[in-house]
C-alpha cells in the first residue's frame, strides 16, 4: 500500500500531509516529494504526520535529509501532529531536539 501525500501551499508555508505507514518501501515516495517541493525554494515546509501510524528508520532518515537540505538553503522544516509511536522514534534516535516538532499543524504555522 502506497503512501498518500498531499501538498497544500499558503502564504505561511508548504504543508506536506502524509497518510499511511512510512517504511522501507514507502519512504522513497516521501523522499521524492520532499525533493520536488524543496526545489521551489520554500521558506517553511511543514510535514504533517497526524495520520501516519508507523514510521521506521528509513522514514526518519528521509526527513533528516530534507531537514539538512532545507536548512542549507536557508529555510525551515517543521514536523507536526506526530502520534505517540512516531514521536517515540525521534526520541530513540535522539532527533527530537534536532527537529522543530509541534503537536498540531496550527501551532507549526503560527510559529
Amino acid at each position, binding site marked *: 500500500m502506497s503512501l498518500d501525500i498531499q501538498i497544500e501551499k499558503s502564504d505561511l508555508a508548504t504543508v506536506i500531509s502524509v497518510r499511511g505507514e512510512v517504511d*522501507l518501501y514507502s519512504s522513497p515516495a516521501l523522499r521524492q516529494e520532499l525533493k520536488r517541493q524543496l526545489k521551489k525554494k520554500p521558506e517553511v515546509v511543514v510535514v504533517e504526520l497526524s495520520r501516519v501510524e508507523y514510521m521506521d528508520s528509513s522514514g526518519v532518515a528521509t526527513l533528516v535529509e530534507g531537514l539538512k537540505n532545507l536548512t542549507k538553503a536557508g529555510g525551515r522544516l517543521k514536523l507536526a501532529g506526530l502520534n505517540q509511536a512516531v514521536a517515540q522514534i525521534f526520541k530513540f534516535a535522539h532527533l527530537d531536539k534536532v527537529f522543530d516538532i509541534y503537536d498540531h499543524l496550527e501551532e507549526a504555522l503560527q510559529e
Partner: protein
Amino acid sequence: MSPPSAETARELRELRARCAKLSSLIEVGAIISSTLDLEEVLRLVMAKAKEVMEAEACSVLLLSEESNQLEFELTVGNEAQVDQDLKEKIRLEMGQGVAGWAAKERRSVLVADAAADERWFASADQLTGSTTRSLMAVPLLSKDRLIGVAEVINPRFKPAFDQGDLELLETFCAQVAVALDNARFHQAFLTQQRLKEQLTAASSIQRSFLPPPLTGEGNQDFSLEAVSVPAQEVGGDLYDYFLLPGRRLAVLVGDVSGKGVGAALFMARVVSEFRYLSRLLVEPRAVMNRLNNSLAQGAQHGMFVTAVYWLVDLEQGLVSYTNCGHVPTLWHRARRSGVELVDSRSGPPLGIVEGYDYRAAHLEMEPGDSLLMLTDGVIEAWGRKDPARSYDRLIKLLRSSQPGRPTLNKILEELAANLEGAEAKDDLTLLELTWTGLSKSKEKEEPGADPILNGSDTVELDTSLRPRMMRVVRDVADRVGRLAGMSREDANAFKLAVDEACTNVLRHAYGGDVTRRLRLSFHLSSRELAVELHDFGLGFDPESLPPPDIENLRPGGLGVYLIKSVMDTISYVHSETEGNTLKLTKRLA
C-alpha cells in the same frame, strides 16, 4: 709310574698356565657380560687382558659408524698423554695398519716381527715413542657386525706372541664383542630413558597448568567438563577456566601450532599471559587483542595459536566471545532442542598479525544450554578430509543427548571406537560448559506455576520480506508485545525493533531480494519477550556496525541504533550451514 720326562713336565706346566689364563679370561668375560657401562667394560677388559697376556700395552679401537674409521677408544699401559694422543690423532681407515687389516678382513692377525710386516703402521710408534716388536689384532664381531678391533702389543717375557696367545685373545674377544654390544645398546637405552623421564616431567608440568574442576558451593548454576588427550607425552592443546569478579566465568580453549616440547612451552606462555590479561582487561576482544600483540612481538620459530575466549555472565547467561582462528563451537540449545555452529567472525590465529583488531561476538544462553568447545584433533579424528561430516556427527550426538546432561563421555566413546585402537594423530581437547542458570531451581520449586516457562508460548512466522508481509510482521509484533503485557509505548518500540531487524536482513543478508524467506519466532516468558530472526543469507552481525553519525546519516546505521536503544539484549549467531540467527530480547516489567 716313571717320573715324567723334562719335556713332558714343561708341557704340563705350560698347559696349566694356559688353563689358568683361560679361566681367568672366562672369569673376566662373565664379569663384563654383567656390566652394562661401556667405559667400565673396556677399562676392566683391557686391564685384565694386559695382565693375562703379559703384554706391555693393549688397546681397543672402535669402528665409527659415521666415518667408517677405527678410532682408539681406550689404551692400557701407556702414559696418560700417549693415551690422549692416540685417541685424538690416530684414525685408521679400513685396511690401514694391522688393526685396519684385521677389521677389513675380519680375521685375527699375529705379527711376530712388526718391523718386517708391511702392514705395520709406523705412525703410532712415532707418537708413543715406543717400539712395537710383536702384536696381535683381533676383530670384535657381534652377530656378524664389526664393532672394532682389540690390539695387544709386545709380550713382556718373550720376543714374540705365539699362536696360543692368539687363540686365547680370540676366545676372549668373542665375549668382549657381545659385552660391548650390550653396553652400547644399554647406553642408547639410557639416553632414551633420560629423554623419556624429561618428557614425563614436562608432561606433568603441563598437566599442572590445567585448571582443577570448578565445583562446590556457589557453583551450581553451571557445570564444566574438560578432557585433553595429547598425541605425544606433551601436547599443544590448551584450555583454561576460572571465575572472575561479578559472577563471570572465563574459558579459553586453544591449539598451538606444532607438537612436542616446543609447542608445550609456547602453550605455557599463552596460558600464563592469558591469565594475567583476562584479569586485567576482562573483555574478550581487549584481552585477545593484547595477547595477540604480545605473542606476535615475541614470536619464536613462527609459532602461533588458535584460540577462543568465552566470557560467561553466570547470572544472565549472556556470553561474549572472541574467536582467533579457532574451530567453531557447538551450541546446544535446550529449549529449542537444536544445535548451532557458533563461528562468528573469526580472526587470524594469535601471534601472526600484530595490531589486528579482533571482533567481539555475543550470544545469550537459556537455562540448560551448553557450549561444546573443541580442537581440530577432534574433527580430524573423524576424518581429516571432511570436517563437515565430523560436525554433523557431533551435532547428531548432541541432539540425541538429553539437554543439560554432559555429552563428553559419549563423544569420547565414539571417538575411541572410530580410531579403533590407532593413536590419534593430533592432540584432542573437548570442553563442555552447561549453564543451568538460577531459573532451573525456581522451576523445581514451583512446578507448573509458570506455564510460560514450559516453552509453549511461541509464535512462529515464516514470511517473505514483501511490503505487504512486512505489515503483517509489524502487526504480529505489536500484538505479541501487547499480549506480553507491554505498555503501548513499549509495544510500539518492540514493533519498530522487529521491523528494523527485518530491514537489516533484507539489506545485508538478502541483498534487497524481497522474495527470500525469513523465519521469525517470538518467545514469551514471564521475564522477557524475545524474538529470533532466522535467515539463510550472508552473515551480518549488527554489533559490527559503528554507532550512527547523525551528520552523515545512513538509514541502515540508524536502524541498528534504534534496535539497540529499544531492546535489552542482542545476540547474533552465524552459521555457514544453518543460516544466521539474530535474537533480540526485551525484559518485561
